[in-house]
């Protein structure tokens, strides 16, 4: 615990920074609400146009819960450290971090945690509240086990997403237009994580292919657990895959870090 304590300062610093831009942040979330609204009406039109009441195992109510829940989950797992890493690499201030007795990976992790705490208060409580409300309204009850599984799985999803975006951001050392690369990766993660549409809508070959990427474990797995779409051994299997990705991505990002630092030259100072 003693070894981790100093890092909480980074968490509280991030919190203070975002809080000072409150009005701006709220504007962004109103924008997100618009996008959710478009999605809602689109699904409504889709279900009324469909000859069947159930599409790929989802009825309309479940789909609406999925849309809100996948949005809330994507906000919760968002570690948002890439901006800091890009800036520090570009202006060379990362050099200061390297001479301090601070582990860069840990520092970033705790900064990411600051974002999570902020989103937890501002978005998650309201968003997840809405999900629970709809669940009760549609089915008359809530499943506590599924909620616990969802929370646990989302926490794993955060760790996976953190290490994925941390490893990707480290590429700033080599690539100048990270904006372009982020756009590419954003498009890919949107589809592969289930944020845009549940993965069951993809053809079978694509679903098989997606198993080889970590993105499905970030959003799709927690949401399917909440909706009770997985049962028995499938639950353990899905959580096991998440843990596996945590291990793989930690190892990968440490390998990239070591390799970069060995060859790092910083100009000026």
């Amino acid at each position, binding site marked *: 615990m003693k070894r981790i304590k100093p890092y909480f300062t980074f968490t509280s610093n991030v919190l203070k920074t975002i809080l000072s831009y409150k009005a701006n942040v709220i504007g*962004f979330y109103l924008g997100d609400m*618009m996008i959710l609204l478009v999605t809602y009406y689109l699904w409504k039109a889709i279900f009324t*146009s469909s000859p069947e009441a159930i599409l790929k195992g989802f009825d309309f109510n479940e789909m609406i819960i999925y849309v809100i829940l996948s949005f809330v989950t994507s906000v919760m797992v968002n570690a948002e450290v890439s901006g800091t890493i890009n800036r520090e690499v570009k202006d060379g201030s990362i050099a200061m971090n390297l001479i301090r007795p601070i582990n860069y990976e840990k520092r970033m992790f705790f900064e990411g945690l600051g974002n999570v705490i902020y989103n937890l208060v501002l978005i998650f409580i309201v968003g997840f509240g809405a999900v629970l409300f709809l669940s009760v309204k549609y089915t008359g009850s809530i499943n506590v086990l599924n909620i616990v599984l969802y929370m646990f799985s989302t926490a794993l999803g955060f760790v996976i997403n953190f290490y994925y975006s941390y490893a990707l951001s480290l590429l700033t050392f080599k690539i*100048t237009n990270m904006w*372009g690369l982020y756009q590419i990766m954003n498009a890919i993660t949107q589809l592969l994580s289930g944020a845009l549409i549940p993965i069951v809508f993809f053809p079978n070959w694509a679903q098989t292919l997606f198993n080889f990427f970590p993105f499905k474990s970030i959003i799709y797995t927690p949401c399917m657990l909440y909706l009770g779409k997985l049962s028995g051994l499938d639950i353990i299997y899905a959580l096991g895959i998440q843990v596996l990705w945590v291990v793989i991505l930690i190892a990968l990002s440490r390998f990239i870090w070591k390799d970069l630092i060995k060859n790092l030259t910083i100009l000026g100072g």
Partner: protein
Amino acid sequence: MKRYIKLYKRFLQQYIKSLMEYRVDFVLGLIGFILVQMAGVVFIQLIFNSIPSLQGWSFYEILFIYGIAQIPRGIDHVFTDYLWIFSWKTIAKGEFDRYLLRPINPLFQVISESFQPDGFGEIIIGTVLVIYSSFHLGISFGIIQILSFIVIMISATIIYTSIKLATTSIAFWVKFSQSYIFMAYSISGFAKYPIGIFPKGVKIVLIGIIPFAFTGYYPGAYLLGRESFFMGVVMTAIISIIAFIVAYNIWLKGIKVYESAGN
């Protein structure tokens, strides 16, 4: 006017030089924006695997409107992308003073700050979708359609720019306006789909308040023969003129209340 064209040309030459220097960046940005738009197309494709039509609209009709909506968005993106930076930086850092000192229109100076080739990603994907779906729908483009198409693209781009300009100008009052542009831009998501699937309140906003309906749905549906020439072309042109006048006046008003934040 001549002077402005000459200035913009000079600026473009400079820009192209730096583009040559960072070719990889250019390609990455382009692929990025193409892929982001492709994700939306994949969504539509997956949906249509399960349903025959979306409230009377076929797969290719939806793609056509989607494509039409991307082109003006891309053109605006190429030319006025600096407004995004303006919204969080120029006012907050007190950089606006220097635009006021030069004997050139401040808005022109701001827009000439950058030229964003990433936007070609949207133009390319939009064009490909329009051609691909027209081919499948068997739409033939006569002289009237081609002229309409040109008017539509110019007007729709002006609507995009106006909405961006109006929301950017909020920065004159509150320093940061990035989130306002984002909010307005999120509403453009409605314009990619048939307006009939949305409730009345949303329709009123899209037609009369933040007129994105004229950047995608109405022009696209007119070319498909499902909305009138009046709504698709005449109204699009009229709305674009009104939108620009309103937006430019907000901008001018903003300059009047501007107080430097620098030292």
